[in-house]
């Protein structure tokens, strides 16, 4: 009897372990599975993957309400430039993330204001300056420049490299002629991939004598578009 048990245990060791492992892992991972009765029928849906973008932390978890602040500055009698970095590593990792599960086509990752007529504004009192006014070399109303050319691109969670992924050039927003600035493009040769982007330099020219305010803000949209 004991000999038989030993044999059975020997045969079933691995199979049993794997079965329990899958069961436990599924349980821990929150997966849903069904114990079938003889009359059950199984259906399975694999939801289509879609091109998408987000801001994630170092563990690829979505950052809730991502914002990024420009470096603080003081009131000035002359035009000044403040800088910031989009997709940073300090104080915590906030990286731009693009997932492309498609097998065909190019895509473009671009940054734009939610409305080209928007401005940097404070709520109380209502103070504003522009982000896309080229007049006076950006010093009349204010102008933002986005420079992704020196940013750090990298593959995401999966091994596929960064072949076919190009960074955009430095451009300043200009209402009506440059409402969208390209951060990164794909030539579509590396399909089914994920990529991160960090350290996109942003500079904003602030007009002379701009009133001091602690919460100048603007809404922007990060778009990834298949083309």
């Amino acid at each position, binding site marked *: 009897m004991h000999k038989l048990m030993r044999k059975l245990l020997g045969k079933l060791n691995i199979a049993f372990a794997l079965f329990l*492992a899958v069961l436990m892992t599924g349980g821990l991972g929150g997966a849903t599975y069904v114990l079938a009765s003889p009359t059950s029928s199984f259906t399975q849906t694999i939801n*289509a993957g*879609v091109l998408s973008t*987000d801001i994630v932390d170092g563990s690829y978890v979505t950052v809730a309400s991502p*914002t990024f602040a420009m470096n603080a500055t003081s009131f000035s009698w002359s035009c000044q430039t403040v800088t910031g970095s989009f997709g940073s590593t300090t104080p915590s990792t906030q990286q731009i993330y693009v997932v492309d599960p498609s097998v065909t086509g190019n895509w473009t990752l671009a940054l734009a204001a939610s409305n080209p007529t928007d401005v940097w504004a404070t709520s109380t009192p209502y103070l504003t300056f522009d982000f896309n006014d080229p007049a006076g070399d950006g010093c009349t109303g204010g102008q933002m420049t986005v420079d992704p*050319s020196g940013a750090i691109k990298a593959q995401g969670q999966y091994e596929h490299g960064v072949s076919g992924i190009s960074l*955009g050039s430095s451009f300043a927003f200009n209402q009506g002629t440059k409402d969208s*600035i390209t951060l990164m493009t794909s030539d579509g040769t590396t399909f089914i991939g994920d990529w991160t982007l960090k350290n996109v330099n942003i500079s904003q020219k602030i007009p002379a004598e701009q009133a001091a305010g602690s919460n100048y803000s603007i809404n922007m*949209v990060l778009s*990834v578009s298949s083309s």
Partner: protein
Amino acid sequence: MQNSNAKIINRLANVGVAVLIATLFAGSAFAVEYGGFGGRPAYPQAGNPRTESIFVHTLNPGDTVEEGVLVVNNSAGRKTILVYGVDSTPSSGGAFAGEQLSQTKDDVGAWITLKKSEVTLDPATNEIVPFTITVPKNAGVGEHNGCIITQEKLAKAEAKGGISLSFRTGLRVAITIPGTLIRKLEIAGFDVTRKDDGSFLLQPKVKNLGNVSIDADAQVVTKYFFGLTHITSGGQYPILRGDTSEWNFELKKPFWGGWYRSSFAVEYDANPEAGVGVKSGNALTRLEGPSVWFWSSPTPAGLAIEIIVLLALIFGGFLLWLSRKRKNWIRKNWVEYEIKSGEDIKTLAERFNVSWKLIAKANKLQPPYALKESQQIKIPSLK
């Protein structure tokens, strides 16, 4: 009996360890799985793989076509997703982008009518949102582009200072109105820019002179000074109607350094039968751009190797020079000598005050360097 029980307990312990290990490894496969939301064409056309990621149609003025966008929520939470159509806008560098919801639509964005403006989806679910594209009767010949956008519907966040971000995914809608379709590109420039870290940006520019978008194969070939190819950069990119596309192909700091030459060329299908995702099957048109010479210093490792090789070459050259000088001296100053009985190379070396090795080398003598009587060799002159 006790021995058997111990073996069974041992086996059960093994199973436990195996379960633990397998669980740990199996668990890692589910570790960091990102799932976003977005859309894709619901009804891709057989024979045009591009229609799996964008909408492509050829329509006459006044035509209407039924379409659908599959809105997908792969995130972990329930989401309400806005779905809307917009006109396209050239992003910097000539890339494709969609205008904002707030902007007035007067092209393809205005031709799109969606059956729903938003959908609410549970995690890992999807829904097809039907829409129609109606081309106005006065639409001009050529390609018109718009975009179907999916964007999460969020309550307006309280301003905290800085830049607040929202995210969206766009699907290009390319509508071609038949007529005289012009497919023509022109190279608008090519620059090579050095970056602070010593790498380079290869920046070709191509202008689309036609009235349809063109999928172009842009290639920059960088060669060493002597013509050997160092690296080829580039890829396939759509160049939109009326736009100038420019790309930044990165060139890592060359290992060896030196003079390099980068040349730009672009190939595209200029035949009118070609379209978005459709090849005519005819020969491609190739445009050759300018070449740019540039200098790069080597990497530290490359420089170290180059210094070692240079020193080795200098030392080798010095040895060669020394050898030739010695040969010349031997040719001018040594004379023929006939070996007499009892003489060997050592006695000759002592007699003529020269190294026996030099005598052996000058006369190409091989070990054991034995000399025969009456043998003719060269020795230093006694003068």
